[in-house]
């Protein structure tokens, strides 16, 4: 049984995202024409079709829009993590991302909870931007 890893496989669009994570920086593409921040990385702005963009670091703070608590593993590599919580996080900069909530008991997670990024090293090359509760 092959245990395919769920770790990221950066491509030409996403290398700058993952490379920044390895330096504990959370950054996203900003269209330099219409100034819309976007995720996931792509070469054309879906708002204005401009191909010009820069990578902008964000505050790493946001609130939980919704969350799910996994009590069954959907992949062998996740079994040891159960139970774990995945959330949609609305960043202060008006961008929504998927991440894991860590260091919070499952029953203490709530919608609207304030969170901040916590980088977690998962292998030699990869840091994942997880989130923890803040006051």
């Amino acid at each position, binding site marked *: *049984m092959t245990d395919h890893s769920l770790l990221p496989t950066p491509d030409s669009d996403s290398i700058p995202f993952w490379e920044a994570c390895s330096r504990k920086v959370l950054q996203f593409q900003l269209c330099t024409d219409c100034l819309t921040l976007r995720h996931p990385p792509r070469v054309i702005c879906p708002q204005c079709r401009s191909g010009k963009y820069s990578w902008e670091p964000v505050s790493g703070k946001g609130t939980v829009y919704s969350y*799910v608590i*996994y009590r069954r593993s*959907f992949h*062998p590599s996740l079994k040891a993590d159960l139970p774990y919580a995945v959330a949609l996080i609305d960043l202060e900069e008006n961008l929504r991302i*998927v991440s894991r909530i860590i260091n919070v008991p499952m029953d203490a997670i709530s919608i609207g909870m304030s969170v901040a990024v916590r980088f977690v090293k998962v292998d030699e090359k990869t840091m*994942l931007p997880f989130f923890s509760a803040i006051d």
Partner: protein
Amino acid sequence: MDSFLPITGLIVLSRPRSTQNRYCIVGIGETSVRKSSETTSLNLALSAASRALDDAGLNADDIDGVLTDTPYHDPTFLYSVLLAENLGIQPSYASTLDLGGASPVAAISQAMAAIQAGLCTTVLFTIGQNAGTNYRQRPPTHGTLNWGYSDFEEPFGLVGAPGAYALGARRHMYEYGTTPEQLGAIAISTRHHASLNQNAQMRSPINLEDYLASPLICDPFRLFDCSLISDYSGAFIVTSMDRARDLPQPIVEVAAICQKHHHRYVYTAGDLTTSVCTQLAPKLYRAAGISPGDVDAAQLYDSFTYTVLLQLEAYGFCKRGDVGSLLANGGIGLGGALPVNTHGGLLSQGHANGVLHVTEAVKQLRGDCSGRQVKDAKNILVTGGGGILFASHAATILRKI
């Protein structure tokens, strides 16, 4: 095209009942829905296609259009053409759709558009998947199909469809006070319908106690909120009403049909307590010249209980946040205000990607459903949803003429 235009009741009455630009489903086929068939997706799709031809009283020569969807566990090059060759068809029009659970309903509109454009006259859609067999033989991986940027979901643990839909359900509970008991009522009603369908994977009735005792999978979803993993196949044949009049089956017309595609990722979908169905519903009703009260039954894409809830709201069967009043007193069961998923749906008949929602509606309109027949069914709403939370949506009103 007439059937796509908004039509008021008045105009419909004053227009001669021409058969031009009107389309029908003239044949259907299904194979058994089960956990495992130990055969290939291709063989399943061929069996259903063959049965649809027999049902329509047609030969392979009569088919000049072939549509299908990618078998997810075994993506195959030129798949629609491969199916055609196996059936002894050299079609003038062939295409493989790529809209997930929206594909079967969307295929009806592709068929109509192709016939309208003069590309072909009679279109077969067939789809079969050995998802159950495959799932048990191979470990879950990233998948044989490239799902598209899983890097921003899977490394964080968002793996599989239940978790993504559960994010929507949790938010709906937060905003509208939706309860597990309400989601449970959908699961229970759907299972009851499956118990009346010999071609269903899960036929033992469940009650609220069973539902609440079923294990939390992706909290707030319990096991019984989730659809099954199944081997299945289903097929149907679309042609013009002129041709349909010469064929043996009672006429089932496509009274209206629409598609709308909205987002690709759960984190780009926006408000997860509603869906693109709210945009499509008024357009569909207008094109069919009916209102929600005229719908006799609905075969709603039901990947999860929450998927059904979103559509009950969007299609005007209850107010937003007030699904409880519809669900009370068996509202979505046979004999209720709006029988939903009379075949048992993806939740209990088995995950057939929505194609059996279409064939069930045709059977209901023909009056072929014996123990689960909706009395005097004339208008049936059939929907499909692809991707997460209606990334793709297609819906139709099928009508008995």
